[in-house]
């Protein structure tokens, strides 16, 4: 039984760590880029979103070159007699790289919708930049931030290609659910594959339900204009009904 459950625990650990990392990095990058006006804006913006467009195997291969024995990061880590290739942290790194663009894009969109005058009002009332962020910008952009978090959570749960390239398939160590399903089918272990499939299905469904629930304005924020634009990504190609 433990053998069956191992991929679930590894995936949950990986997904939670990844979501925490992308949540913080995504918000930081989104806030930086939503006010950065330099010439490099399109370049930086593109670099942040690139992993979303590239095939996962390409990203995985790139990370492998970077972190392998002869890569910059690999050489740096070797100084401390450590390596990330084919280890559990590798699953977190790949999942974070792959899910970061979703958090970044959605959050940035939500930040850009926040009326600059309202943030400025907080500044004239003596608020520090940090207080402006957590007491004004984040609460006002909250529906978008939640949507970005759940999208990146879902993306890291489903991460397969890049993870396989960098973390490999070491049962009990780096084998996440998607990787385990793939190898279970290859080995003809249909029982394990179906078992894991049902688990993934439940998690995915629960996270979408959570999104629908969290997107609804809470009673405390009743009457606040619902910031619908950032979640448009969920409705791509479909006509979105009027928010609120």
């Amino acid at each position, binding site marked *: 039984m433990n053998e069956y459950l191992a991929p679930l625990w590894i995936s949950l650990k990986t997904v939670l760590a990844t979501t925490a990392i992308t949540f913080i990095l995504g918000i930081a990058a989104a806030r930086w880029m939503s006010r950065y006006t330099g010439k490099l804006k399109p370049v930086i913006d593109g670099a942040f979103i690139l992993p979303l467009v590239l095939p996962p195997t390409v990203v995985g291969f790139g990370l492998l070159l970077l972190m392998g024995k002869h890569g910059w990061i690999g050489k740096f880590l070797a100084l401390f007699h450590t390596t990330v290739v084919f280890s559990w942290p590798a699953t977190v790194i790949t999942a974070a790289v792959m899910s970061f663009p979703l958090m970044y894009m959605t959050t940035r969109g939500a930040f850009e919708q926040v009326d600059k005058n*309202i943030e400025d*009002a907080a500044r*004239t009332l003596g608020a520090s930049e940090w207080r402006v962020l957590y007491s004004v910008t984040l*609460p006002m952009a909250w529906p978008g931030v939640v949507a970005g978090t759940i999208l990146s959570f879902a993306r890291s749960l489903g991460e397969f290609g890049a993870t396989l390239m960098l973390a490999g398939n070491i049962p009990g160590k780096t084998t996440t659910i998607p990787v385990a399903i793939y190898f279970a089918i290859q080995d003809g272990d249909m029982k394990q594959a179906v078992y894991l499939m049902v688990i993934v299905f439940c998690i995915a469904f629960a996270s979408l339900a959570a999104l629908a629930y969290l997107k609804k304005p809470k009673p405390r924020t009743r009457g*606040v204009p619902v910031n619908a634009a950032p979640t448009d990504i969920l409705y791509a190609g479909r006509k979105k009904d009027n928010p609120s």
Partner: protein
Amino acid sequence: MLKVELKRKLLDFSLNVAFSVDGETLGILGPSGSGKTMTLLCIAGLIRPDSGFIQLNDRVLLDSSHKVNLPSKARNVGLVFQNYALFPHLTAGENIAYGIRNRSRQEVSQRVQVLIEKMGLDGLQQRYPRELSSGQQQRVAVARALAPEPEILLLDEPFSALDSLTKEQLEMQILDLRQFYKGNIILVTHDLAEAYRLSSRIAVYESGGIIQCDNKAKLIASPANLTVAKITGFRNLLLGTINEITDSHISILVPELGTLKAVRYKHSRLLSGMSVTIGISPEYVKITNHPGENTVYGSLSRIVEEIRGYRCFFQLNSAQNTVYQLDAVISKSDKNIIPTLGSKVHIHLPPEYLVVITH
């Protein structure tokens, strides 16, 4: 005491202003896009001018020559935005409390309560901005700006989004503010009447510069130039030349109409022979039956009925092609003195209301 000197290049013009406010209400009057709001944002530290100097009481907020630029949060400046910019996710009470720092919970709620009462917001403390009328939102915005006890209050077109009745009530409230707020106030507006009612001095802006900054009565009595005269409501503008200056009067020769006299004010820097424009507000133009001093002859060409009076347009006699038009407002109670359309009458321009504007 606030001292301001600002320079900033903008797309179409550059802002270049200098003025000071000393415990009073200064009205900044000007058309949209003349740099009024920009001035407020510079004082509040939200926009950085190319160069400038701002001193508020004994603190220097900005001094570009000494690389001093206090951030907004350290300036202690209250700003009420044109769209109020209330925090939509906080209640009216929480909005007002936002800027009160370093106080105990009890002191904060006391201060909020005081402001709620003074701004007439009783019972609305728990409402979210969305649940308030725009007049109430504006009062919350003013209370929020006053809560940290700012040394200056900046109001950016505070009444532009309100209906006239609400506007009237809120103007009274701003006037009443003076009873408990002794700091400086700057009011930005494009409405002369509003600026006149609420402020003691008025600075007239045009394309990024101040064309006149004076006591409000003086601004109306002696506009510095034609633009100010037009903004302050002078219509009947006639071109002429000064032909005599006495201690009390100035005589101006207007071609074809004759000589008109205006009362001379001490501050005027007028010289004989100067070409000037004279103007008079429509309310002071009088219809009389006989010719006399400062009287011109013309025919009534048009009558427009307004709420509180009739606006009469007179065509003045002229031998050549120049057509002069005079515009008079006759109150409803004087309806019987309005002649029939097309008839000729004498029109008196009282010397005490004739204003001489240099070019």
